[in-house]
């Protein structure tokens, strides 16, 4: 429905205007009809639209450009072998808590036995942090194109065609050169994990192999092993094709420090002209959502980078920058509020009126998220705002001690029927007896001889990360008899999370807790 939101509008448009008070006009088509000062006349068709005075900041919904949804119900993995040299090393961790027991198996069982519940739980977790678009869709037997959020990998904007290619596992050099590079023709993007590891490690070779794809549209995830010269090479290659274009690096500082005790040289990347976006990465080595990751970036920026990035630039990393990176493939802009943009919105308390809007966003916690709209529809927020925004079929949940409502079941979606209590029950059922749940899922699969895109067909999610030593057992369609599926990762950065961070002893991560006290 058409809707008008009034408040302090932080546009992230080209001039980074802040309209205070301002108004955002949400059209029936899920796009913004206008973004104006509150005193200006409404656009045509909005004179009778419901109007909500939020008394809060209105921002673009946050964009998490690096995640792995299939694993995001899992808690932090406290691996003993840190720091690892690169991404192939922790996969082989066999000391308890080993990789396959802690990560591969629980995710695999949930992806088979409770796929809808898994995705919806992860989507709710992201919504609570103000996220409206998230990257990292698992492979699946039919596309999961966003029951709640925009799933970047599967989103079909604007032509109904998926223009986003992703690869969390490295592709072969010939595939990159002969196939993917050609597809980066200015209409598609490739989100690609590259050089994830410590500087000087062998994963640097991945960047060399990626050479033919150093074109506009490439979004490189991690790049922790890259040097300033590498970033220069990258941006020069992009600019040689389109002088106005910028390459994009996705920065996940928490995960980098957790696994490698180092992070990407984003200052060098920025100096070379690359665009920086943030990603919270998967929960075994990441923050709960990109709002949490923003704080890690802020702390690292202040303590390790001499405050190279301004508050506004940090905030751009979860809004305008990823939005611009995706604009190559998507028609409607995300991450910036202007006429025609996607109506993906975050309403956030201006909890510290003495500081500017960007510092308010950086310091905001889950308690300060008041409303989240995706495609112009309310999915999460305070009971009052959800009702005012016309939300239906909502369930109550408590977030950081506050009552919130969430719209998990969309009556118009025939391929997903669980509400929030149903999501929790489904996950708990798997946890209670993972072996039985797995076998029941296998029976359902074995019984289905029809097409996989049939809504009645069993949905299966496949992880996009390496499996460790689970392979031969997994191929037998079996699971370890003593498998334990952990309790779903809490939705907020809570005491248990900070206790795990404290146990890690990684200095750069210890400041995160301070934002939540």
């Amino acid at each position, binding site marked *: 429905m058409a809707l008008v939101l009034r408040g302090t509008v932080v546009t992230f448009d080209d001039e980074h205007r802040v309209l205070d008070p301002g108004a955002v006009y949400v059209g029936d088509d899920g796009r913004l009809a206008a973004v104006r000062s509150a005193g200006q006349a409404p656009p045509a068709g909005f004179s009778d639209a419901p109007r909500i005075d939020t008394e809060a900041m209105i921002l673009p919904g946050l964009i998490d450009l690096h995640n792995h949804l299939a694993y995001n119900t899992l808690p932090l993995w406290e691996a003993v072998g840190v720091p690892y040299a690169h991404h192939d090393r922790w996969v082989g961790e066999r000391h308890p808590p080993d990789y396959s027991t802690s990560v591969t198996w629980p995710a695999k069982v949930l992806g088979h036995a409770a796929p809808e519940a898994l995705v919806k739980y992860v989507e709710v977790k992201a919504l609570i942090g103000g996220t409206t678009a998230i990257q990292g869709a698992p492979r699946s037997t039919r596309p999961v194109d966003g029951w709640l959020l925009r799933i970047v990998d599967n989103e079909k904007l604007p032509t109904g065609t998926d223009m986003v290619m992703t690869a969390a596992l490295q592709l072969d050099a*010939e595939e990159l050169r002969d196939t993917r590079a050609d597809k980066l023709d200015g209409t598609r993007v490739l989100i690609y994990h590259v050089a994830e590891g410590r500087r000087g490690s062998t994963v640097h070779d991945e960047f060399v192999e990626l050479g033919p794809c150093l074109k506009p549209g490439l979004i490189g995830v991690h790049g922790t092993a890259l040097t300033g010269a590498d970033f220069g090479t990258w941006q020069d290659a992009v600019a040689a094709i389109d002088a106005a274009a910028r390459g994009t690096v996705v920065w996940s500082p928490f995960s980098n420090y957790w696994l490698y005790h180092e992070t990407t040289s984003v200052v060098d990347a920025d100096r070379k002209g690359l665009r920086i976006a943030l990603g919270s990465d998967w929960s075994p080595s990441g923050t709960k959502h990109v709002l949490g990751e923003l704080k890690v970036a802020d702390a690292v920026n202040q303590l390790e980078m001499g405050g190279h990035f301004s508050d506004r630039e940090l905030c751009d990393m979860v809004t305008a920058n990823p939005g611009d990176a995706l604009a190559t493939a998507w028609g409607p802009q995300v991450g910036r509020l202007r006429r025609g943009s996607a109506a993906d919105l975050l309403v956030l308390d201006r909890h510290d009126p003495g500081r500017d809007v960007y510092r308010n966003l950086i310091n905001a916690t889950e308690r300060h998220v008041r409303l989240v709209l995706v495609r112009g529809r309310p999915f999460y927020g305070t009971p009052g705002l959800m009702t005012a925004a016309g939300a239906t079929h909502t369930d109550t949940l408590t977030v950081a001690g506050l009552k919130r409502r969430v719209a998990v079941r969309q009556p118009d979606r025939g391929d997903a029927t669980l509400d929030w209590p149903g999501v929790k029950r489904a996950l708990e059922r798997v946890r209670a007896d993972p072996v039985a749940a797995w076998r029941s899922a296998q029976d359902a699969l074995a019984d289905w*001889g*029809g097409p996989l895109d049939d809504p009645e067909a069993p949905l299966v999610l496949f992880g996009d990360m390496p499996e460790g030593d689970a392979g031969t*057992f997994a191929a037998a369609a079996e699971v370890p008899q003593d498998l334990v599926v952990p309790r779903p990762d809490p939705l907020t950065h809570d005491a248990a999370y900070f206790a795990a961070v404290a146990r890690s002893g990684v200095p750069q991560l210890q400041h995160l807790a301070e934002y939540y006290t």
Partner: protein
Amino acid sequence: MSATVAQPTHTLPDSIGLDAFLERAADDPLPLADRHRLVAAARVLLEELYVHLPLKRAMHATDPVQRLRLLERRLRPLSEPQFHAELAGVFQELRDLHTGYQLPDPYRGHVATLGFLVERYVDPDGRPHHIVSKIDRSLAHAGFDVGAELETWNGVPIERAIERNAAAQAGSNPDARLARGLESLTLRSLRTGPPPDERWVLLTYRTRAGRRRETRLPWRVRAAEWRAGRAQDPVPTLATSLGIDAGNEATRQIKRALFAPPQARRPSPRAFRGVVAYRTLRLRGRSYGYLRIFSFNVSGARLFAEQLARMVARAPAEGLIVDIRGNPGGHVPAAESALQILSGHPVVPVSFSLPTTRAALTLARSNPGFRVWSSSIRAAVETGEVHSQGFPLTDPEAVTAGLPRYTGPKVLITDALSYSAADVFAAGFQDNGLGPVLGTAWRTGAGGANVWTHELLRVWLPELLGELPRGAGFRVALRRATRARGNVDVPLEDLGVRTDELHELTERDVTGRNQDLLAAAAALLS
């Protein structure tokens, strides 16, 4: 012979006429663009992902890729049945029951049947006989009943008719083709091959009383498997460890529905009682266990192994006869876990290799479960190998941990329809020294691969494989199986397992309860 041609007074229950079925199919033909999509998809699969392509080109002097190129150019004038027959024919030439075109709706989930089965035995003089071994009771007429011996088929001597039918089958060795030719005389899956050309068959036969007669029987079409109101394949769409002849699994299930005792006709397709049975036999004064494994088409290895372990725990110490005749295969780890239950020592599983193509490398890179294969595929640019390094699909000892084993003497009975996962089982039985293999043909069906559906491959290769129209599909042999221990690196495809002893079925075997076959098996146990 009587001057009149008999015919049954009833039609086969729950069936429709072939004409009526084909008219329905012709009402809504595939648009030309959809035909192009299907042929293009077939080319990608065969060129890029079909693991046996080099072998098939060499062994059968066939070039399926070129045939598909030509078909692409000649699509327009083909009628609907001609198109399906042409495309199916390309795959048939591969002599590979794993790899095939699956016709779209409405063919999916249907079989054409004459309502009876024919089995063959050879008498002591070496003369073959072809006997009606099963018949739907509604079709018995004029002495055309169990035990009737066929003489001609549409005017062609029956032996020659079977040979001709066998030549059109995809079985990879002569024994397998003959067995398939015999079976497909009366039963054909419409999902995996074109419907019969003839609408009825004219048969001359001798009744059990020795009277020579003639009858005319119509082809009828029956739904093979439906679930949730939809036509389904009898083999899962989404299974990564399958080695199975999907067409034969369809006919196995329709045979069960038509001819099994009423209480056994409607099991869930993958229920254990549909795939395995056990009883104790008394032969020449001694007791033996008899384990009949009809199929390995189950959902997982561990539960199957548990079921088997419970069954064989009852087997006498004198010996166990394991019978996998007609087994079209299924879940490879289940087959290898079953082997482990029958062995006191760790069994060495077969190994599987991928083709060393670009698409296979992309698959190995993007599917975490395939990572182990990627380095040798990549190295093939320099080594020139057409197959990757081989790795087992599973560890049978780990899967069966804690389960009791049967360590007494064993003999395995096979036939030319024992296929794929059943080939793997037979090879493992022989290679791991579990006991002698007694065949009713010299070789097993010779299907040596792990088969994937186009739809499942699309999950990992969305850039390469597009959507197919109307539920049409393909199955493709993706990973090649090679044997272990003394036969290490010997492929199963086209070779199968050569039996240690041959027993040609007798009349008593065919019309009775396999008495002579079981006696021969028992003799190998003593």
